[in-house]
């Protein structure tokens, strides 16, 4: 354990072939992250057969790079259109979208990508130093701890909502009830399907988010007679440098978000609550909490830092224990077995070049990733210049396609 192992890892990860693999993975991942309804898990599953001919280390680098790309990409549609590409980018919409509407989409995107990178880096460093120790803590997490996390997250929603707390509570209850529709996994009974077979599968989170959030927002901006104000955004890379000058001001948010993200992330299903919790904390400790929800850069930094820190930390139980920390990690785990590797604690001893190559590739992959998406900021921001009458139906169609892709049931596109 220690530095010489990491050096060995870098020797594996920093070969021309593996770097090209990382670039390809990130490009594909960003596209997948932008498309709502397609997540990192889909992308990894589709690419899995391609990797059988590669050496295992290159294969895992391709798949993890795709995952980083999807994490970065989820923020793009959240900020530009208020449509979260992934569940954990929902909190990014709260301030990212108002910023984009004020013509500061470039700044919001830069802040999102930069804080994603900071959060990821924090988690990777912790994984490098404490992997086996942290794995033991993760194992001790049981139902009471999960309940506590969820309770804290949902309580923070009521505290967060700018308007009527009763309305926030009613919305949370509607969400819970929608989630209860379908097959009860404990007793096997059908709940609230009223004889409709298509309701058996229940409502998917992404469908609810796209339908209620994405389309609702489109209708609202149409009602207010607003075109998307993208034209005023500076369309060059100066935006990136200018934003970087402001960002160090939020160092406290970065640190807090990284810790929350990492702590929630290395246990299953942590990225989404982590992003919400980080946002709530940032608002609580801010000197200007009233600015949150109206386009505060800190409100983009907080959830993105936490979500990406959690996304990286989700890799930890997979490497050390062979337990997937996220659906994407579960698919990757399948890959490990196909490549002839036995996931679990012995992997560190049996295949040090693989494990440390993977950890080193997390550094290289995220560095390449952040450079690539930052270079793309002017391009992404330029999307907002498309005339309103073209953009609106396009978003509606993408929503319909996305929600259909999740469930493959025609009526979900009707929720759009």
């Amino acid at each position, binding site marked *: 354990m220690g530095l010489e192992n990491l050096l060995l890892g870098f020797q594996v990860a920093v070969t021309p072939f593996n770097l090209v693999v990382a670039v390809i993975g990130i490009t594909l991942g960003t596209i997948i992250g932008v498309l709502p309804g397609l997540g990192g898990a*889909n992308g990894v599953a589709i690419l899995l057969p391609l990797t059988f001919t590669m050496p295992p280390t290159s294969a895992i680098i391709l798949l993890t790079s795709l995952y980083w790309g999807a994490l970065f990409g989820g923020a793009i549609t959240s900020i530009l259109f208020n449509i979260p590409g992934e569940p954990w980018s929902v909190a990014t919409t709260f301030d990212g979208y108002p910023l984009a509407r004020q013509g500061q989409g470039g700044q919001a995107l830069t802040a999102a990508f930069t804080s994603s990178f900071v959060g990821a880096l924090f988690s990777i460093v912790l994984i490098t130093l404490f992997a086996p120790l942290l794995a033991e803590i993760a194992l001790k997490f049981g139902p009471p701890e999960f309940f506590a996390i969820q309770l804290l997250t949902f309580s923070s929603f009521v505290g967060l909502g700018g308007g009527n707390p009763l309305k926030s509570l009613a919305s949370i209850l509607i969400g819970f*009830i929608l989630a209860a529709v379908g097959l009860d996994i404990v007793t096997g009974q059908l*709940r*609230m399907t009223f004889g409709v077979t298509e309701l058996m599968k229940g409502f998917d989170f992404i469908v609810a988010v796209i339908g209620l959030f994405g389309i609702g927002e489109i209708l609202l901006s*149409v009602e207010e007679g607003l075109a998307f104000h993208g034209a005023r955004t500076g369309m060059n890379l100066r935006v990136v440098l200018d934003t970087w000058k402001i960002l160090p001001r939020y160092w406290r948010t970065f640190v807090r978000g990284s810790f929350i993200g990492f702590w929630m992330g290395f246990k299953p299903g942590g990225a989404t609550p982590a992003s919400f919790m980080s946002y709530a904390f940032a608002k609580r400790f801010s000197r200007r909490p009233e600015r949150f929800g109206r386009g505060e850069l800190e409100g983009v930094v907080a959830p993105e830092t936490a979500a990406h820190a959690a996304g990286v930390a989700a890799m930890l139980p997979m490497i050390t224990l062979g337990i997937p920390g996220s659906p994407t990690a579960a698919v990757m785990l399948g890959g490990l077995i196909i490549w002839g590797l036995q996931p679990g604690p012995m992997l560190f001893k049996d295949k040090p070049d693989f494990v440390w190559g993977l950890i080193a590739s997390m550094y290289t992959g995220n560095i390449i990733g952040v450079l690539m998406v930052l270079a793309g900021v002017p391009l992404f921001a330029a999307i907002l210049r498309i005339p309103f009458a073209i953009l609106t139906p396009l978003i509606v169609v993408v929503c319909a*396609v996305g929600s259909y892709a999740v469930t493959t049931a025609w009526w979900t*596109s009707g929720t759009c």
Partner: protein
Amino acid sequence: MRIADALTAAVLMLAGGVVIFDALRLGIGWGTDGPKSGFFPFWLALLLVVTSLLILVQTLRSRAAGPFVTRQQLRPVLNVLWPATAAVALMHFVGLYVASALYLGYYMRAVGQHAWFLVLTLAVLIPLVTFLVFETWFLVPMPKGPLEAWLGY
């Protein structure tokens, strides 16, 4: 605004009632191996009914604060909503790709009044790209109609 709030609260109460009805059928008590299937939905729905009732009371006691929506605002909203609803209904018969092409074309022409050339190019190109990405690359099947069948998909 008052009427809209009160109506929403009433609808939510009704929805809560439906959930409670189904939860009672499933059993809201404690079975031999833990809570029965209706336990969780029952309490959620009960809370929803209570919350909506409170919102209703709150709304009725407040003073009116302007209309929920003006005629000028409603028009563009319906312009998005009706064609979209029609497209979803159409999806059943002609498939997702043709329906989105029609919807895109209609909105760009009727609302945006863009040139026919641009409208037609985009209305064909966007569903085509979607088709290539989802059907051939990601192998996610979408609802398809006679046109796709005729093309051999």
